[in-house]
């Protein structure tokens, strides 16, 4: 096809024109860009490609297959709705950063080779940082700096892996990695940093909650899901991913249960949900890979919805801590309803999109007879309802009324949430359109009485536990230490060590050499000769019988002589002779 070209270009080059638009036209323009990209992706045929010769390589900037298409669809769909949500945002920088970010995420998804993948990967890291910095608070600035440093680390691992890989194989093509060697491991580590796999996970819960209201919505979708895409493409069936995925699901729940900030709860639940996808990739069968892709698709929708509802609360109240919120159902009923639909979807409540997508992953584990994986994923499914399904809506909209009466959020935000809520339910009751675009052919029936009953038991008992254990879940005004401790406190420790260590050596040298030694030498050369002269002359004169007055006079004369440099010629001559004699004797 000649008309096909990378959809990333629409967003990236389109972003450059933003400063030429004003007011509402600008907001309409940014909504239009991803919508056009969505349309384009729907029209481009499987198998199309677009290449360019660059850096001495044939770079494939467009590789269209079902896997890249499904991610392309959801990335552009989500972007369109997110920009409707962000209709109130006037800040050019935020719009441009968002479009660069989403555009480069599309670039990664459609990249057919490792070089262009890396290129877009890094643009993504940098553009996304500006969505955090856009909040313009000190906290956001610091979190953004930590965020970009972690991503530079991940990017360097990826780059090192890619360079070794290309040198070894001579090919830049990006397909399933079969060999397990340092190159592929490095690539995997680079990707897992973006997937927020522990221990490199803390950047997500550290940075996303500090982003702007609409920035948080956009961030929640792309970085981790491009990582999921790259894993599906490059690392299907790598067993280690099953273990990592299972750890992520439980890690996300436990930290979300401890958390007080509503957007941080949602950040941890991203890690939990991505864990399901990573485990699905690790299982590596057609069914579980389909599950990972489908779950990423649905996850982007309901997670955006959840971030939108939390964003609305933050937008209206300026608060995001559960200890300061509560009782908002009275004045924000629509936000509550939409948020709850998102919360039900993430919990895979029957009738919502989470149910029709997550089941594919869990059944994928069952089909492979992976007992422990299945148990962990079921436990995690129950736990999702605890931390995201109930905890988030309960503490924000119900619980203790803190007297906030903000009123409902603005209409475009509500419209965006309404659409996402509709999608959650639509894909829950009629998943066929989703199943049709999955990378592998699907013959799957999510709904059976036993399956629905099993899920309902899991969720309802989980709800029961939540309310029975409510006193234990009381919110406290705290944060929880995570792996970012090592670079936040460790960084300070390193700084202190360097400060005390190197600066200590410095000041020691200063005291010893500059201040003391040089003055001592100076003093020696200034006062030394007169002292030596006195040491020799005074005893000699006292032996010769000089009394005290005479000696004092001699001292005074010596002092004066050395100060003015006016010595009797004879003495100078004797001293010089003595000096030469000593030289002669010793050398």
């Amino acid at each position, binding site marked *: 096809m000649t008309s096909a070209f990378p959809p990333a270009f629409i967003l990236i080059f389109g972003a450059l024109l933003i400063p030429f638009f004003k007011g509402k036209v600008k907001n309409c323009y940014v909504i239009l860009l991803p919508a056009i990209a969505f349309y384009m992706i729907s029209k481009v045929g499987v198998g199309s490609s677009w290449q360019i010769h660059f850096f001495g390589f044939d770079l494939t900037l467009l590789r269209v297959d079902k896997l890249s298409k499904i991610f392309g669809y959801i990335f552009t769909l989500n972007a369109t709705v997110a920009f409707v949500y962000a209709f109130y945002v006037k800040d050019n920088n935020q719009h441009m950063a968002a479009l660069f970010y989403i555009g480069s995420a599309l670039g990664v998804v459609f990249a057919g080779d490792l070089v262009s993948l890396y290129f877009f990967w890094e643009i993504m890291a940098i553009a996304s940082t500006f969505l955090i910095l856009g909040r313009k608070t000190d906290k956001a600035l610091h979190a953004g700096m930590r965020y970009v440093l972690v991503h530079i680390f991940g990017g360097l691992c990826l780059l090192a892996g890619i360079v070794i890989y290309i040198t070894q194989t001579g090919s830049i093509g990006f397909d399933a990695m079969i060999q397990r060697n340092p190159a592929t491991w490095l690539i995997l580590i680079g990707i897992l940093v973006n997937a927020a796999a522990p221990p490199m996970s803390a950047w997500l819960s550290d940075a996303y909650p500090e982003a702007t209201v609409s920035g948080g919505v956009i961030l929640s979708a792309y970085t981790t899901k491009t990582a999921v895409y790259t894993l599906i493409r490059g690392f299907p069936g790598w067993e280690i991913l099953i273990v990592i995925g299972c750890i992520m699901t*439980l890690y996300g*729940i*436990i*930290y979300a*249960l*401890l958390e007080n900030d509503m957007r941080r709860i949602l950040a941890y639940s991203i890690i939990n949900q991505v864990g399901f996808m990573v485990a699905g990739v690790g299982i590596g069968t057609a069914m579980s890979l389909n599950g990972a892709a489908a779950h990423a698709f649905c996850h982007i929708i309901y997670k955006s919805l959840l971030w939108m509802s939390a964003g609305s609360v933050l937008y209206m109240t300026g608060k995001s801590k559960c200890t300061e919120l509560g*009782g908002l*159902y*009275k004045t924000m*009923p629509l936000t509550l309803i939409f948020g709850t639909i998102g919360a039900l979807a993430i919990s895979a409540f029957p009738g919502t999109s989470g149910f029709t997508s997550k089941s594919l992953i869990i059944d994928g584990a*069952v089909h492979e*007879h992976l*007992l422990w994986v*299945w148990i962990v994923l*079921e*436990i995690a499914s*129950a*736990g999702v*309802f*605890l931390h995201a399904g109930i905890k988030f809506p309960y503490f924000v909209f*119900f619980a203790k*009324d803190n007297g906030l009466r903000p009123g409902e959020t603005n209409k475009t935000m509500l419209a965006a949430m309404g659409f996402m809520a509709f999608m959650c339910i639509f894909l829950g009751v009629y998943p066929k359109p989703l199943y049709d675009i999955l990378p592998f052919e699907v013959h799957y029936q999510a709904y059976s*009485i*036993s399956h*629905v*009953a*099993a*899920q*309902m*038991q*899991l*969720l*309802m*008992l*989980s*709800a*029961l*536990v*939540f*309310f029975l*254990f409510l006193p*234990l*879940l009381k919110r*406290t*005004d*705290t*944060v*929880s*230490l*995570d792996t970012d401790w090592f670079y*936040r*406190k460790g960084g300070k420790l390193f700084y202190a060590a360097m400060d005390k260590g190197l600066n200590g050596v410095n000041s020691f040298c200063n005291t010893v050499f500059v201040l003391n030694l040089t003055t001592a030498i100076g003093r020696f050369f200034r006062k030394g000769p007169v002292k030596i002269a006195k040491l020799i002359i005074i005893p000699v004169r006292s032996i010769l019988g000089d009394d005290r007055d005479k000696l004092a006079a001699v001292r005074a004369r010596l002092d004066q002589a050395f100060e003015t440099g006016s010595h009797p010629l004879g003495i100078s001559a004797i001293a010089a002779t003595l000096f030469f004699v000593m030289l002669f004797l010793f050398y």
Partner: protein
Amino acid sequence: MKDKKEFDYFDKPAVKRRLWILLFVVCALSVVPDIFVDRHPHFGFDGFIGFYAILGFVSCAVLILLSKLIGRILKVKEDYYD
């Protein structure tokens, strides 16, 4: 006097009690289909009635207690890093 009474349905003790009852009823109802429907236990031990209910209850209780325990070590004041 306020001209419009605030919507505070969920703050009423009677409503809270009703919701508790509803929750218990739904929990009980969710187990009912197990009695009638032919289930397909995958691993042998997961075939008995109410398996998922017990799994849900136990795993959530353990998760909460575990997080409570971990929280004792990991929870720090809001301004810890400042």
